[in-house]
């Protein structure tokens, strides 16, 4: 080997190619470890949530009686009264589920069609300039805090929209707080979510399918409604599910404009209580730690957590499979 012209660059580190236990390597390993711990934080969060909820509601540790040791699962699921703060305590979750179902159902009726139709408009009809106006507006709508929507529902939707139409026009009695207002407001909140998720899904449908449609003599309506939407159906359903789970977990807007009265009712014009509003009100009222009311909070939160997690998970699975189809 020629050694007459030494490399002018300074030698740094070891010149051997073999792995050595150098300081540099140790530092790399350390950094990797720290970053891994950061990634673990999210897993630990989930595990802690599950533990906390299970501990107070199900797990029978010595010297601690969980919620379901004091209230039977049967009563919890089938009793039709929810009266934790009364002397005669009942813990039937049906009224809370009913409230949540009303709000979610109404929000779905408002938010899902509006969101889907907006998504179709943005992905199929609107030119780039209109899209560049609409996208930020929808982001803005999605970024408004839920308490603002609550205020809007309580002091605007109910007195200036629902009362004049339903009471003035049709003669129904409309409560100052009611499930309908809550549902409408939550619907307006989830609409941007549906719009942006569904738009992504619609845009993932290959352009070649649209072209094939046009080549068969289809109008824009035919292509949008009979080709693109059916092709994206599973993805759209996933976005619906995700949005509805947002509705199930929505708290402040519902607390403000849907009331705080647990009722098993078929009338959406009276105050109700959802699972989330129960939790907020109970915590605000300083439930005594260790009391049965306190433990009931965790049981309700467990139901809420399970429902939303399941909806999210299914939606993620569908979306993942959907993305694999169109790649």
């Amino acid at each position, binding site marked *: 080997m020629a050694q007459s012209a030494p490399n002018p660059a300074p030698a740094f580190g070891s010149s051997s190619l073999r792995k050595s236990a150098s300081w540099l390597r140790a530092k790399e390993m350390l950094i990797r470890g720290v970053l891994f711990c950061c990634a673990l934080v999210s897993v630990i969060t989930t595990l802690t949530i599950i533990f906390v909820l299970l501990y107070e509601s199900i797990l029978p540790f010595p010297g601690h009686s969980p919620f379901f040791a004091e209230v039977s699962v049967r009563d919890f699921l089938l009793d039709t009264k929810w009266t934790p703060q009364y002397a005669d305590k009942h813990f039937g979750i049906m009224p809370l589920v009913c409230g949540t179902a009303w709000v979610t159902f109404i929000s779905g009726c408002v938010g899902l069609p509006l969101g889907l139709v907006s998504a179709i408009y943005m992905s199929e009809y609107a030119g780039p300039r209109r899209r560049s106006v609409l996208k930020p507006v929808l982001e803005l709508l999605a970024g408004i805090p839920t308490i603002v929507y609550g205020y809007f529902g309580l002091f605007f939707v109910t007195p200036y929209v629902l009362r004049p139409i339903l009471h003035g026009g049709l003669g129904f009695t409309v409560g100052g707080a009611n499930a309908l207002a809550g549902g409408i407001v939550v619907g307006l909140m989830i609409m941007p979510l549906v719009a942006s998720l569904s738009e992504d899904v619609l845009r993932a449908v290959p352009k*070649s399918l649209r072209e*094939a449609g046009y*080549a*068969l*003599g*289809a*109008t824009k309506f035919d292509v949008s409604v009979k080709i693109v939407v*059916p092709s994206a159906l599973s993805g759209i359903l996933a976005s619906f599910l995700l949005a509805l789970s947002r509705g199930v977990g929505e708290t402040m807007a519902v607390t403000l404009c849907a009331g705080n009265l647990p009722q098993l009712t078929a009338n959406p014009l009276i105050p109700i209580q959802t699972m989330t509003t129960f939790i907020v009100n109970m915590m605000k009222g300083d439930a005594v730690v260790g009391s049965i009311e306190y433990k009931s909070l965790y049981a309700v939160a467990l139901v809420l957590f399970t429902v939303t997690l399941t909806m999210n998970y299914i939606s993620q699975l569908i979306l993942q499979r959907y993305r694999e189809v169109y790649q």
Partner: protein
Amino acid sequence: MSTAPKSTGMSGSATPPLVLGAASQGPAPAGKPKFETRGMGFFYGSHQALTEINLLIPEKAVTALIGPSGCGKSTYLRSLNRMNDIIDGTRVTGSVLLDGEDIYAPDVDVVALRKRVGMVFQKSTPFPKSIFDNVAFGPRIGGLNKLSELKDLVEHCLKQAALWNEVKDRLRDSAMALSGGQQQRLCIARALATNPEVLLMDEPASALDPASTARIEDLIFELKQNYTIVIVTHNMQQAARISEFTGFFCLGRLVEVGQTKQMFTNPAEKETEDYITGRFG
């Protein structure tokens, strides 16, 4: 490079030219012209993709368009049923006549035009629906809803596309489950179902294996009895095998057009010869 394409006559200038420059007019040899393109130009924004195209496409025959990639042959094909309208900022100059009617006239309904001029794409594009629904799509949006009529029509088109025997027992299965060659024949059947007069094919066999390619070629041979077919292909042997007429595109111009046999044996232009013999492209 010449601005007007030269035609390759049977023996020099004795036979009437098939396709003429902008200056002269004359009858086409094989039947009457289905498409007539006069002095056509095409722009993507300010970029000119096609310049001064003059071409007659004869009825009930196969016309092949060949040329190096990016030469504008696909753009030209897509302008025959105005598929380029979908792309923003495109513009056509000159005229394209279908049976003597300008398809770029302001009162032309693009939807009706595309029903008459069907198209098959390079990549098979089955809709994620059943085989039956794929073929029935065109007739359904056109207003045909009677199930018995639809069934007959679907069967007829699948038979025409030589796919019936393979799928007749699973018409309700998803079209996505078919093989690549079957999907492409399904797309042909789907295009036939709107009862078009012209079929435009954009490299329909380029993504297929040799056996499937051979089936598609046989199919094209069958279909030309009833349909005018324009096919873009990068495969010269294919053009030679299936087409009666060939146009050679290069750099956005139609360099030469003529009877396929003539063009492949005795091209008039140096560029054509270079391309066909594989010296460039």
